[in-house]
């Protein structure tokens, strides 16, 4: 009785919007619908065979019971029957493989693409580089930590939201060049039916042509370590005009960022900005309170580097430390972000060194 109670309680307590999706996403591309149809076709074939087999079995379970006086017969071999019930399902299922091959060949279409995007999997984030334009950014999980540790209510896109989504044009062939920086990841967007492993040292390709603009969410689908469940994929499909506008905005923003790097900042501005950068990029390992995890990730509070020479502090953030989990953040953070987080780490989390560094001094 107590089990049923907990079951009922659990179902009531989850937010109402959680839907009961039981089937595969039909998706928004011609290919994802083709795959959905293949999925339903093989599903119905299995259901038909299953109903036939289990029907006979349950019929004989009820009819041929000893308690009903059934007497067992003595035949125990009939190769013709066996050949029939082997060849027929084989033919049905092998016939199934022909349309599957057709779909697979469409998926391996190597015609020229309109947009080429390099997707690089990092330990626990994605990096998108537009080959034709000079756009290059990281896409981190943006679900606040409070929601993950249940200190605040979970928003509808819990764990499926990022700070910078990948933006692609609708009705255009977009080609993804997928690789990885450290371990094997896998880039998957269910509504595109695109899933390709990101393997370090090698490059894979996939493509998509999306018909309807919209936001489509997916996740990393190959175990890649601690935060494998926390590096989602969000793709924003815009109409061609909006996409062109977005590209222009990105380029303008890049210029502004360059300009900002030469600007002088006050200590408080740097610390304020540095806290945001710390929570997004460093808290994952060094923990929000800067204590780190003994034996795995060193603490920032009272760390020899964070309280020592400022150049060494900058160098370890810019170039990382070989052979350890400390990555080179040179390409992941702008000069302003690096200056801000260095100043923040030296004057917060229990450190009171008192010095600061300007973005112009950061030599990338």
């Amino acid at each position: 009785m107590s089990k049923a109670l907990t079951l009922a309680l659990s179902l009531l307590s989850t937010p109402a919007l959680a839907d009961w999706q039981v089937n595969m996403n039909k998706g928004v591309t011609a290919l994802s619908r083709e795959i959905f149809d293949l999925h339903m076709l093989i599903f119905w074939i299995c259901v038909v065979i299953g109903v036939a087999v289990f029907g006979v079995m349950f019929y004989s379970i009820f009819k041929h019971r000893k308690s009903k006086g059934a007497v067992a017969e003595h035949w125990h071999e009939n190769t013709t029957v066996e050949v029939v019930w082997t060849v027929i399902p084989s033919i049905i299922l092998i016939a199934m493989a022909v349309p599957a091959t057709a779909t697979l060949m469409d998926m391996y279409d190597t015609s020229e693409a309109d947009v080429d995007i390099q997707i690089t999997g990092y330990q626990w984030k994605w990096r998108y580089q537009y080959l034709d334009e000079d756009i290059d950014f990281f896409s981190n999980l943006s679900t606040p930590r409070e929601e993950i540790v249940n200190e605040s209510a979970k928003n509808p896109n819990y764990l499926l939201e990022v700070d910078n989504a990948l933006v692609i044009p609708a009705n255009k062939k977009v080609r993804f060049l997928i690789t990885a920086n450290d371990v094997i990841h896998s880039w998957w967007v269910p509504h595109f039916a695109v899933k390709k492993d990101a393997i370090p040292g090698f490059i894979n390709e996939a493509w998509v042509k999306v018909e309807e603009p919209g936001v489509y969410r997916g996740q990393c689908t190959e175990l890649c370590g601690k935060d494998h469940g926390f590096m989602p994929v969000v793709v924003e499909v815009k109409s061609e005009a909006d996409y062109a506008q977005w590209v222009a905005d990105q380029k303008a923003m890049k210029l502004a960022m360059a300009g900002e790097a030469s600007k002088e900042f006050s200590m408080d501005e740097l610390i304020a900005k540095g806290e945001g950068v710390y929570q997004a990029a460093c808290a994952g390992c060094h923990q929000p309170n800067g204590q780190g995890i003994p034996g795995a990730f060193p603490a920032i509070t009272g760390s020899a580097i964070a309280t020592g020479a400022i150049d060494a502090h900058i160098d370890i953030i810019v170039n990382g430390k070989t052979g350890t989990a400390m990555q080179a953040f040179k390409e992941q953070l702008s000069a302003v972000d690096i200056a801000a987080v260095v100043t923040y780490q030296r004057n917060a989390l229990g450190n009171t060194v008192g010095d600061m560094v300007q973005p112009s001094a950061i030599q990338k």
Partner: protein
Amino acid sequence: MAEQNETKTNRLVVRLATAAIAMFGFGFALVPLYDVFCDITGLNGKNFSQGPAEVTSVDRSRTVKVQFVTVNPADMPWDFKPTVRSMRVHPGEDKHTTFYAKNSTAEWMVAQAVPSVTPSEAAPYLHKVNCFCFDRQPLDAGTDTEMPLLFVVDPELPEHISTITLSYALYDLTDDQKVTQVTLDNDKGRASL
């Protein structure tokens, strides 16, 4: 009867044990077998072609788009990017491009690039006549360089392939170098094990 059974069992056990050891060896034999299989089918975008390709005619009627992509693995601080993002080539003609690399750290380092081609079907048709990825590339602190790549696309490239992407992952081999003190890899093959 028992002794005769004894020897039969012992003979069988010896045969089974050697089969097990043979399969252990087979596990290791899969490594070279895999490389041969990759070379033929271009599986996983690997291609080991180096040196001048026996390509005679230049097929002016067809152009193929060749893209260059670079990836820095986990702890590789160098700046590494192609000077030219992509180019259109005629199959059969030799083409040249360079890759820019800058060692922005404070020590001498040595690195090696690992090539990978997509679509993997095109891998056997992209001949690298001379490639910086054949050897290790040392760079002093703060210096930069332009590394050459001379390649030719084989005219027998299957019709349906119109774009080839050649990617390089630049790996830091400074520790290896210090540990093994191997002189620069002179057998011109891909990085030895």
